[in-house]
């Protein structure tokens, strides 16, 4: 093989991964305009601006910037979450908006950092799928991930949920590569990536449980024998995660540079004792324990495209039978499983995927884990589900080829045609469902529960975070009177400010959180928030909205206008 061909063959998959990631960023950017700013985004905008001001100070007055009083002043904003993503939002805003003017909108410049990190998940899913299953399998896995409605929604935001899924995946991938290749490069990379993961969101605390369980399961008796012989066979990547990881985490979060122990304890305490918000599930609003144990499973079924789940199931069962079916003996033979030797590489790979899924869902095995965040809280599992789905896809493809060959002879089913047809048919529904879900991402449900109308009838959460204001910006611009006052309801004031700064709503509209001071009122529907709608009814003297944001026939956000007093003109 010539050097050029060798280079091409080595570069092709990273190049495909890069193109997938870049393509996803392009898709996110091209659909960002009518996606309003979510409640939490408003808080992160505010924090990122504060951190951005500190970065400015760091370049002009570094000594002053590093003093505790200065660090605390700028980094106390939103200190219940670590700093990596907000720092990236800040830097993206500083350079891509303020300095280089790549983006005409502040909000999009901040979201861009989230989009890029989220897209890493798509690229890495491809790379891992390609290595474990093949190029087509990698492609299918990556597109299935990108085309999950909730993944698509969260990937737009300047939040941490898709970024933490991406960072978990990238760290786990580096860990897997370190086991495959040995040496020091991958372990060190794993340590650094774990530090960044720690600095992204607290889901990161769970990853070591998955990796240690993986070590115990895959090494089994050998691990025990090593320990009895006085050897501690810890993979170098785990060692790096325990040493480099915390150092990177510490360096990346100035808030914990001072009073470190106290502030870390407060960070942990905040999330271990998180306040319970409300969440509707099967017609009941949960707001305190016991939380329903069926929540994550049903919500996964209801929001992840069915074909993705089906292929995931096929891939998982196949992997389980592959891993353990050989031990079934006569029973196995009866169901067509011959005793076989297990490839330790594939076994290790599959166990790592499975554990990442299990650990991501594990907190919801407790009645005490809040469910308010919906699917985003176990979104770290989704890339691994897509990788198993790619296994299922590959298996199905293989089966179709065998069927075709058996029926029509070896030349009938052309390999590429089968791949293209099956690939297209597998991806068609996820693509259609996901693109159709925009910009109502949190209201979208799959056909398995009857789509959005079926979910509404079942009593599944319609929306949260007040982001759908963005979808109704056009109506507000046309109908709110000049200098009129608008009750924002669940949209955070900071999110509205960003809509206004970006020119997405008229600048003369005066936002308010007081119904009585408003002439127009928004209402974002959640059952426990209906009391706010009733306040509008009484205050405005009408229960009839004047406009509604509707997704597939289901009302999501509605708008009230205060009726003019009798005899009032205009």
């Amino acid at each position, binding site marked *: 093989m010539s050097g050029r061909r060798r280079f091409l063959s080595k570069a092709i998959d990273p190049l495909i991964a890069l193109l997938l990631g870049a393509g996803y960023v392009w898709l996110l950017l091209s659909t960002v305009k009518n996606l309003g700013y979510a409640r939490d985004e408003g808080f992160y905008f505010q924090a990122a601006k504060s951190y951005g001001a500190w970065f400015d100070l760091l370049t002009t007055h570094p000594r002053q910037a590093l003093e505790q009083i200065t660090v605390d002043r700028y980094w106390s904003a939103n200190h219940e979450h670590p700093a990596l993503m907000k720092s990236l939002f800040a830097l993206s805003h500083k350079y891509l908006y303020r300095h280089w003017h790549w983006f005409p909108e502040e909000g999009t410049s901040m979201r861009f950092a989230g989009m890029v990190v989220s897209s890493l998940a798509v690229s890495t899913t491809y790379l891992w799928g390609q290595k474990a299953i093949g190029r087509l399998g990698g492609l299918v896995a990556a597109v299935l991930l990108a085309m999950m409605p909730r993944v698509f929604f969260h990937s737009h935001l300047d939040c941490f949920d898709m970024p933490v899924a991406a960072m978990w995946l990238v760290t786990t991938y580096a860990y897997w590569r370190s086991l495959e290749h040995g040496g020091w490069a991958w372990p060190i990379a794993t340590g650094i990536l774990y530090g960044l993961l720690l600095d992204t969101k607290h889901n990161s605390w769970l990853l070591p449980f998955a990796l240690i369980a993986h070590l115990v399961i895959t090494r089994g008796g050998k691990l025990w024998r090593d320990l009895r012989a006085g050897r501690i066979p810890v993979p170098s990547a785990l060692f790096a995660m325990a040493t480099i990881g915390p150092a990177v985490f510490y360096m990346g979060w100035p808030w914990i540079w001072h009073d470190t122990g106290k502030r870390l304890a407060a960070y942990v305490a905040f999330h271990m004792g998180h306040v319970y918000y409300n969440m509707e599930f099967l017609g009941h609003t949960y707001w305190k324990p016991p939380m329903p144990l069926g929540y994550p499973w049903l919500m996964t079924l209801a929001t992840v495209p069915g074909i993705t789940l089906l292929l995931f199931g*096929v891939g998982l069962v*196949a992997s389980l039978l592959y891993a353990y079916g050989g031990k079934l003996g006569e029973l196995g033979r009866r169901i*067509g499983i011959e005793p076989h030797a297990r490839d330790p590489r594939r076994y290790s790979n599959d166990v790592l995927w499975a554990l990442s899924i299990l650990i991501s869902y594990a907190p919801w095995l407790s009645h005490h884990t809040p469910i308010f965040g919906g699917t985003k809280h176990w979104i770290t599992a989704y890339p691994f589900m897509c990788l198993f789905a790619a296994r299922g896809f590959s298996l199905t493809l293989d089966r179709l080829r065998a069927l075709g060959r058996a029926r029509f002879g070896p030349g009938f089913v052309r390999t590429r045609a089968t791949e293209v047809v099956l690939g297209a048919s597998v991806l068609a529904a996820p693509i259609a469902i996901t693109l159709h879900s925009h910009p109502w991402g949190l209201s979208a449900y799959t056909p398995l529960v009857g789509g959005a109308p079926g979910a*509404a009838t079942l009593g599944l959460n319609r929306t949260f975070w007040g982001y759908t204001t963005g979808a109704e910006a056009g109506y507000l611009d046309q109908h709110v009177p000049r200098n009129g006052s608008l009750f924002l309801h669940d949209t955070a004031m900071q999110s509205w400010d960003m809509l206004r700064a970006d020119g997405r709503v008229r600048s003369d509209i005066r936002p308010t959180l007081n119904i009585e001071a408003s002439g127009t009122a928004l209402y974002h529907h959640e059952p426990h928030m209906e009391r706010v709608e*009733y306040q509008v009814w009484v205050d405005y003297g009408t229960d009839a909205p004047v406009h509604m944001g509707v997704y*597939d026939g289901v009302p999501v956000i*509605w708008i009230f206008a205060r009726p003019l007093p009798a005899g009032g003109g205009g």
Partner: protein
Amino acid sequence: MIPGAELWQARPRCLPRAISGWPCPFCLAELAGHFYFAGRAPRLSDWQAQKTTLAGLKRHGELVVVAPHWADPLARLAFGRGLLPMRDEARPDDTAYRRAIEVGILGQHAPELSGWRTVEEKHVGRFLYRVLDNPAPAKVLYDFVDHVDPGHADAYQQQGTTRRTCPWNAHARRSDGGLAGHVAFPSRRFECGRRDSMFVGVTIIDDQDYRPRRCIWAHPPAGGPTVVVFRNVPVGRTVHGYGGLSWLLTRDGAGTPIELTVKIDGQSIGRVVHRDQQGWKGFDLPAGAHAGHTADVQFEVRSDNPDQRDFCFYADTR
């Protein structure tokens, strides 16, 4: 072979047979299902086109119920408050309606009308209209919530031997507490003190299903009751009613119980003790010898610890 599929090839030979064939038809079924469900529910314009049909069916005093309930806001926008008035939307229950028109979509029916007799059904596009008769409608003689005004009622607070009259204000300062705050305080009310919440007036609270309930707000003071007296009320056999507090604020059940005493011409006909976790809870108090007469009916609301006892009640005579 798929490039790089060497790990995959290690699978046992017969394994795929049972599990690998059926994703193929599922792909297309899901796609078809997506388009079907996405277009299944009527759009806002479909609802708006139904206004004349509903207006032709509905007679004065009849109730309109939308099924499923989540479509109710669409109906309110499309039909307007003339056909779906706030009074009906926030009704205490359905017992007083002789007839209801159910506007149903997606094959859904309103569970609250399940015992009613269907007298007419009409399909119009994707809508099913059902006209239903209440098998045992109650005849309401007097709805107290409709009469909270100085022409029909007085309010005062009794603290020990001191009686403090609550003057009527038709232009009081409206206020709303938002998600975690108090319910809407209306502009027309009897004002019973300096604190905004000390008044008697009509508002809407959220019940245990977060549904609206129109009721008379009567916050008790410390050391005595808030009293509302309705004059010259035609009394039926019972005083029928409900009591409750805004569910979101009181669902943890930590509040002190509230007592509602009903008197006719100064004579007590019953006392209801309300606890937070009971939600919107009904009562029926027999009027006894007062039935069939015109009398003054008095409601007294008290609590041992009146802090945040934002009590609201509905009552009628029937």
